[in-house]
């Protein structure tokens, strides 16, 4: 957002009062604080309006690909370090299906991408897109594969530098709002025209350095494109880190518009590529396309993405309450844990492994783990006793017993005093629960 002074300079400075403020300056101050909208001034010039809109735009443009529930948004970031606020839009991950492998293999790839979805601490983590790449295969096969992908849910990246074929491909998946990859120095005008004509986002890249990337970005602007992705060179991990960092800084700190777009990196299948994908998730890549995403790698990569894109001020939490696990009855065991998602889902999974139905009481710890909450005084015998009351544990279960996490055995006496429940100390790690519960049943 521009400052009040910057805005003031662009206003008519007549102090006419139409905006219901006594002076233009007063209005500018309210506008800078986003309390009013520019519309309220009838006399502002179109030119000033355009200028204000541009300087008020976010430092990194937001670009969406795909349609429907699985559409993904990139860019719109405002920070260099996540501790300053948060990173908003998780790196989009895509699996590449290359037509050199033939149509059948491409179809399998498209399916693989769709099935790479996992539930982790209550969130669904998935590979978010599928990239169809035209290299040495036939055009017919390529278009067939695009059609196959168009019939499915994931957003599509069309990796095809031949604008004529890319146009056909784009038409084959028109309602999916695909991302076009890419306009280079060699095919710029044709690709830009395609993107403009069909209102599709376009990657600019294939460059040797950032200067060249800036040039392409400026050409894209001249061509009337606003949904652009930048592909910087990534010859080594070091170069990748440097270029991604410079782009992010130029956009956020210097408000350098030509670099104020989301970024993309296309990677291969080697171990080095896997490490670069991890690096990209940490260091500012908005999208990463990869040739191989074996599950043993993509699962930890998705966990990394989930970690890095968690809001540092708000841990992922579940709602406090009394949860049934399996189909518990009045005589099923009761135990408690915290409302930190990681803790809750870990414990829940371990109870499920025991196959013994149970009641799991989730105590509000403001999203902190057992030891953290205990050390910070956010999980006390009092707060647990209150949860026992609030969530009517004694109405649901007549065992008169509560199993507590092994790490907080110290609260046993006091908790017993406060609740009249028999307190049984469970294992320190919930992985020990199945063994314990089998002996209960």
């Amino acid at each position: 957002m521009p400052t009040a002074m910057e805005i003031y300079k662009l206003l008519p400075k007549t102090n006419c009062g139409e905006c219901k403020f006594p002076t233009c300056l007063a209005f500018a101050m309210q506008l800078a604080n986003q309390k009013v909208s520019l519309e309220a001034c009838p006399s502002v010039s179109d030119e000033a309006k355009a200028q204000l809109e541009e300087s008020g735009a976010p430092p990194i443009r937001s670009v969406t690909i795909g349609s429907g529930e699985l559409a993904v948004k990139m860019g719109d970031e405002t920070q260099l370090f996540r501790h300053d606020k948060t990173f908003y839009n998780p790196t989009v991950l895509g699996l590449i299906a290359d037509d050199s492998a033939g149509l059948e293999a491409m179809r399998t790839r498209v399916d693989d991408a769709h099935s790479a979805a996992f539930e982790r601490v209550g969130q669904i983590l998935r590979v978010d897109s599928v990239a169809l790449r035209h290299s040495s295969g036939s055009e017919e096969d390529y278009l067939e594969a695009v059609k196959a992908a168009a019939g499915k849910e994931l957003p599509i990246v069309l990796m095809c530098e031949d604008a004529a074929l890319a146009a056909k491909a784009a038409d084959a998946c028109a309602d999916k709002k695909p991302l076009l990859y890419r306009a280079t120095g060699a095919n710029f005008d044709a690709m830009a025209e395609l993107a403009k004509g069909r209102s599709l986002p376009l990657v600019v890249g294939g460059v040797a350095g950032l200067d060249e990337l800036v040039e392409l970005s400026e050409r894209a602007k001249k061509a009337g494109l606003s949904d652009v992705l930048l592909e910087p060179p990534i010859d080594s991990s070091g170069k990748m880190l440097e270029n991604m960092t410079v782009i992010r800084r130029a956009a956020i700190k210097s408000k350098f518009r030509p670099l104020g777009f989301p970024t993309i990196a296309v990677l291969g299948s080697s171990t080095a590529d896997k490490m670069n994908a991890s690096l990209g998730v940490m260091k500012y890549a908005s999208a990463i396309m990869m040739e191989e995403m074996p599950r043993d790698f993509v699962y930890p990569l998705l966990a990394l993405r989930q970690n890095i894109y968690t809001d540092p001020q708000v841990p992922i939490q579940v709602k406090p309450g009394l949860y049934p696990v399996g189909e518990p009855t009045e005589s099923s065991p009761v135990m408690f844990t915290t409302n930190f998602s990681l803790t809750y889902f870990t414990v829940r999974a371990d109870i499920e492994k025991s196959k013994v139905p149970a009641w799991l009481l989730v105590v509000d710890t403001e999203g902190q783990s057992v030891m953290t909450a205990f050390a910070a005084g956010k999980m006390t015998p009092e707060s647990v006793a209150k949860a026992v009351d609030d969530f009517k544990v004694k109405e649901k279960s007549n065992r008169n017993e509560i199993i507590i996490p092994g790490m907080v055995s110290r609260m046993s006496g006091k908790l017993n005093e406060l609740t009249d429940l028999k307190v049984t100390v469970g294992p320190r790690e919930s992985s020990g629960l199945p063994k314990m519960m089998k002996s209960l049943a």
Partner: protein
Amino acid sequence: MGFEVPKEKFGGRIKEVAIGATKEYGGTRRAKLVAGGSNGLPFHLFEGESGPMPLVAMDVVDTMRMVPERLQETMGPSLADPAGWAKKCEAEWGADMCVLKLASANPEEEDRPAEELEALVSKVLQTTALPLAVYGCGFEEKDAKVMEKVSNVAKGERLFLGLAEEKAYKSLAAASMANGHGIVAFSNLDINLAKQMNILLLDFGMKPENILMDPLMAPLGMGLEYSYSNIERLRLGALSGDPVLQMPMICDCSCAWTVPEALEENPEHGDVKMRGIYWETITALSAAVAGAGIVVMRHPESVKMLRDTLKSLAGGE
């Protein structure tokens, strides 16, 4: 056009800390390692000194109680013998240094007597020439006894003794100062606590060049985000000129092997062996990218993977 690369210049600098003493300095280690020593963000070669590469340490644990069975399988039988394990780190797995964890001192578990642990450290010093850090079991009274002996038996070797904690650092600091060793200052994911810990040690009489900081590395999927940001903040704090934060950080990434998701058989999540290796490598990579001067790892294949990436980050292929 006129695009100018936005560069940051910092006034501060991460201190250089030497680990291990060669013959020349009165020890028997094969190298005197240097951690730290840079005036920029990690791997930001376009605007600051690169400094030395992050060191890659490997840990050796003296009881199988603390080593998941899966690792015992994939890393081989040598793990049962700590000296043999350390030798592998040196000769086959390419570690820069070793972190020997005397977990068996734990009075609630094996409760191994201090004399035996002294003998163990001495044996490890004879079997390998790697620079060494030695950690106690976290029970203050016992560690005080053990570390005094360790300090004496390793006189001149410039070990790093750990972990110094806010409420338990005096005996460790004394043991470390007695024979010219260094110390590892532990703090819990909090920049102020990290600072406080260093101040306590400095007030006690330790020299800044003898201190490494362990800001607690939480593994991937288990709080990594807290550590990642905490390390970044510590590094930025140091670079912006706070002398009490300029000690290099040592981040123990072997914690990845405590995460069930890294260890459990689950075909949906792919091959368990490779998954564990990626789990540890990604944990270590984030520590290095955030600002660690030393990463501690366990699996030889993770070490290799990380090393290749560090080379590439430092401007190689």
